């Protein structure tokens, strides 16, 4: 299909968001450990994820060192799946950024909003670069249907929107940086979190609570479906839908991070086979997890108040922190028992030696 160049003049009057008021965003996050033996210092982190010249890497210190890169845009013109099995062509740009937590964990995250109003034809490229991070469908689509289709993506043909590949390329490129010493401190698997969000004001809808569904699709793939209604008029004027999207991105990264830390630590414990005798070896095997991961657990610390209820909900069921505390307790028990054993050995040695004062 050929496309036409049109003057962009009337475009400013087009609604930028959504059929029925709810905005749609989709994304995919990769989470893993930097290929570096220790915690990467703040300045090196800033250099590592300095992706866009002239745009700051945003770094914070409390409650944990956190760095977030600027967004890099990529152009796409492809099909996106819908829940009903049909596919709709969409054109625009997707954004990708990197985050480093505690100087150790790397997250690469690609996302885009989707305007499902249906532009009928592909417009001049300058139309899309004027609003990075927005795809526009050519035919009208239903927001809920787009979310359902995106999450069911495993079953879709290969030519559909592939945000995961873009996140993965950034992860690979970052891991190849000469700023990293290349020494992976512990064995782990990268996780992928694929998410969708319906958010913003929905005219006519009564006060609805946010809803979220987190699914472990496989060992390494998770999906998250978010519904974040915001009653029209409640948000301060300065907060557009994009502020809410920033908060949603933060929530998704935070959930992906904690899911990855929990997964990595529990797998480590499983592999170490704590019941089986050699405690010194067990402690040695657990050590990298203790050194690199235990201090990273701060669920919801960076999540906006408005979305805190979602973390709280996941804390009740399945109870991430409950499982985390149980895992940490097992690690600490091993350490305690090991320490006791060492002390016992020492005191036996002491008892055996006859020292006179």
């Amino acid at each position, binding site marked *: 299909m050929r496309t036409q160049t049109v003057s962009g003049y009337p475009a400013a009057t087009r609604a930028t968001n959504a059929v029925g008021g709810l905005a749609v965003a989709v994304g995919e996050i990769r989470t893993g450990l930097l290929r570096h033996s220790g915690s990467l210092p703040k300045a090196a982190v800033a250099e590592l994820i300095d992706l866009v010249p002239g*745009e700051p890497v945003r770094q*914070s210190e409390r409650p944990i060192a956190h760095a977030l890169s600027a967004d890099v845009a990529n152009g*796409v013109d492809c099909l996106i799946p819908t829940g009903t099995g049909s596919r709709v062509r969409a054109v625009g740009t997707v954004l990708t950024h990197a985050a480093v937590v505690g100087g150790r964990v790397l997250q690469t995250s690609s996302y885009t909003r989707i305007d499902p109003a249906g532009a009928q034809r592909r417009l001049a*490229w300058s139309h899309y670069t004027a609003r990075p991070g927005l795809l526009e469908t050519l035919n009208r689509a239903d927001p809920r249907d787009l979310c359902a289709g995106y999450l069911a993506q495993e079953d879709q043909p290969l030519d559909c929107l592939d945000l995961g590949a873009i996140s993965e*390329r950034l992860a690979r490129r970052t891991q190849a940086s000469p700023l990293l010493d290349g020494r992976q401190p512990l064995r782990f698997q990268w996780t992928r979190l694929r998410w969708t969000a319906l958010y913003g004001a929905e005219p006519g809808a009564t006060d609805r609570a946010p809803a979220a569904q987190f699914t472990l699709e496989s060992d390494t793939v998770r999906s998250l479906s978010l519904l974040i209604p915001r009653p029209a008029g409640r948000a301060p004027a300065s907060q557009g839908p994009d502020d809410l999207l920033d908060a949603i991105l933060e929530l998704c990264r935070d959930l992906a991070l904690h899911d990855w830390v929990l997964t990595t630590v529990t797998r480590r414990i499983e592999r170490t086979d704590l019941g089986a005798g050699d405690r010194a070896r067990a402690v040695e095997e657990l050590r990298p997890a203790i050194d690199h991961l235990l201090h990273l657990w701060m669920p919801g610390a960076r999540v906006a108040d408005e979305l805190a209820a979602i973390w709280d909900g996941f804390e009740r069921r399945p109870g991430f922190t409950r499982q985390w505390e149980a895992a940490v307790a097992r690690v600490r028990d091993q350490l305690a028992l090991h320490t006791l054993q060492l002390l016992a050995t020492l005191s036996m040695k002491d008892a055996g030696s006859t020292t006179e004062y």
Partner: protein
Amino acid sequence: MDTSFHEVAAQRRTQDVAYAHLSVELDHLYMEDFLLGRDHLRRRIAQIAPWYDTTVASFQRRHAALRSPRISTCFLVDDYFSDLIAPAELVPQLLEAAAAEGVRIDYLARESGCAVADGVELARLVAGRLVSVPAQGTNGSRPPTVESGWLSNGQRSPSEPAEALLLHEWKPPVEAEARRHSIFVDVELWDEIDGKRTWSCPMLAAVWQLLRLGLLRNQGRSVVQPRPLPDEMPADWSGMPPVVQLNPKAAPFSGYRTLSLLEDRFLPIEQAVRVILGQVAQDPEVMQRVEHRAEQEGMPVPSDVTGRIAYVFMTDF
């Protein structure tokens, strides 16, 4: 109890700049033009005056709701590719010719300031935001095909080793926004000799347009602040401010829209400029603020950048 905690380094702040309604560029001369003597310069400036009056009248009629439109004028001196004439010699010549022909030049900029201004590599900022136009079927699974230093308006012909070319038929390049037939343009953005990068004229002209539209920021801060003409003119152009404000009462340097009055020899350059500008991912926050302010002033702007740029190509007829 209500507590709040902030970390400055965790936030990004965007600085606003002042905007005129329209920024008008009054022709563009190469250094060589100045070597052709004062009479030549006078003739060139004389050619601008009627076009300027016509376009301003047309702008005012189009935006009749603006009671007193803010229009600033600027002149770009090409000192990047050659700096044959020192500012102390060139600037008085130019001002004299402009005064004699009744043309008001509010701002004088030097082209090298589009490469680096006050230590900030503006051209690199823009190059870092390029997002190339995707062919249909581009879904993110493969990295975008980037030829370092080049930017096209579509898809290039497939390139293969010379012996393979003998076996395969040639495939044409395709313009992404073609109307049935392509006009394929491939723009050289820079070249590098012995590690030293030289930006191309279209690349610098693209930066120039973004500067005039007030859309460039470095770490959220505006990148060029017009300064008065130095009391003592520097010996070479690098000593001049990137943008000099000649008229103390001038409307702001940047405008919601730009108009360039150019001789028609610049037509291919400006086509290349539009190919570049269409592929610059804009800063959403800056775009939002500009659109909002322009709207409030009763002069809504097109949401895409190339729609804010107007030209008159002046032909000697």
